[in-house]
């Protein structure tokens, strides 16, 4: 095994171009487990710890450019208002020790269906900034996950950052596990209200071969909210609408039975989380609306 230690992003891209089999390691919270257990013996480890740019974020007008290695603990501390869904998801990642090391770049690189960040990214709307010596491209998050632990990266590409849309409305995140910390999601659900476009986006984790959106459920809810004038009148969402939304979210799952839970449990739990996160976010939207009206 060779340990490659690029001192700059350009050097890292050159190294990845020269050794496409090199495994990038940043927080190490996935890669080191595989090495410790002898599940993987990469020819090259490509250490990204020295590249300071990867640990920085920039808050723009519409989105946050989040460096691939920004640890979850920093996201929780610093980006709660811009990226509330991702901050909540970050808080559910493993333990303080892991959150101090792991970041969204690694979650995307591993592309496990159980990765905690994915539902939040899908719900908020995001693009993955992938770079190689050939250049940089932005991959829409909807096209990024291509299979179980597979993603759209080319062999010579590295993840530089993820561009996440800043929240224009309430966002929520929910995760099912056997305890509060140190748990791989049995399933997870992210939901974001987008009042600017009068739309709702979702993300489902651990209930299909890849993280997915419940697009039929989103379309149904968008239409139902529009038809009932809910965005304007701020009324409580009709229970039948919430139930139909939850059922459609369950139907968007394609889960398996495994040690963490059965397929039918996952489908059921996703429906419950869909209804709850919709209620939480909608209550928060209504509250903010009343507040704005009162001020005006």
């Amino acid at each position, binding site marked *: 095994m060779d340990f490659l230690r690029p001192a700059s992003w350009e050097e890292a891209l050159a190294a990845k171009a020269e050794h496409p089999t090199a495994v990038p390691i940043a927080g190490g919270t996935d*890669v080191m487990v595989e*090495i410790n257990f002898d599940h993987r013996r990469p020819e090259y480890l490509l*250490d990204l710890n020295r590249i300071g740019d990867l640990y920085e974020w920039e808050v723009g007008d519409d989105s946050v450019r989040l460096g691939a290695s920004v640890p979850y603990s920093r996201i929780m501390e610093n980006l709660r208002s811009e990226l509330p869904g991702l901050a909540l998801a970050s808080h559910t990642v493993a333990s303080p020790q*892991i959150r*101090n090391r792991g970041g969204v770049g690694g979650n995307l690189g591993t592309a496990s269906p159980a990765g905690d960040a994915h539902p939040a990214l899908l719900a908020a709307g995001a693009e993955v900034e992938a770079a190689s010596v050939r250049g940089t491209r932005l991959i829409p998050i909807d096209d990024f996950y291509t299979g179980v632990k597979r993603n759209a990266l080319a062999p010579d590409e590295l993840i530089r950052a993820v561009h996440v849309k800043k929240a224009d409305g309430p966002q929520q995140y929910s995760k099912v596990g056997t305890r509060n910390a140190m748990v791989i999601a049995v399933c997870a659900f992210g939901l974001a209200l987008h009042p600017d476009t009068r739309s709702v986006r979702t993300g489902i984790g651990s209930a299909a071969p890849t993280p997915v959106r419940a697009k039929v459920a989103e379309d149904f809810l968008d239409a139902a909210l529009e038809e009932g004038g809910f965005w304007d009148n701020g009324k409580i969402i009709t229970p039948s609408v919430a139930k139909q939304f939850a059922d459609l979210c369950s139907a968007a799952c394609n889960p398996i039975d495994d040690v963490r839970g059965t397929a039918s449990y996952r489908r059921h739990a996703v429906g419950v989380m869909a209804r709850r996160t919709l209620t939480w976010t909608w209550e928060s939207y209504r509250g903010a609306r009343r507040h704005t009206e009162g001020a005006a």
Partner: protein
Amino acid sequence: MRVNFTVNGRPQEADDVWEGESLLYVLRERLGLPGSKNACEQGECGSCTVRLDGVPVCSCLVAAGQVEGREVVTVEGLADYARDRAEKGCARGACGGEAPSGTSLDEARNWQARGSDSQTGEGTELSPVQQAFIDAGAVQCGFCTPGLLVAADEMLERNPNPTDADIREALSGNLCRCTGYEKIMDAVRLAAARQGEAV
């Protein structure tokens, strides 16, 4: 490969390090510091917790090559680290100035928990959190203790007056199979209370 890094305030050099080796393995097997415990090797249990540039991490998940030029504090250096912090009003290196005292490898290898009998925790060579673990009966088999001490000490540095929820959150990455955690909670509350009295 060779790895140069700072351990408990002193520069160290580890040779013949395999590229896929963890920081935990280097500490235990190359430097002879078995205080950090090897249990799950997958970041689940927190027994191997150390400070890396001040931040608590699982040393089993840090590749040895990643610590080149960086600073590690292990449980063997925790008492000295806590003393430096108390005396200088800041953690080692954080406020610059004079060279840090630190803990040599020999001292670290021979380090033992020599507590005091006093009710106040004063006059001990241990860090406040170590003495509190002894006084509160928070140590049973002891395997999880080093990781818990490092994690608890870091939390008390950041948050001198933690609520129970703060303590549970800070220690949520450290598993203990003996105590049921109640005595550990008692110990951290005790350390926080004594810390508050001392100021």
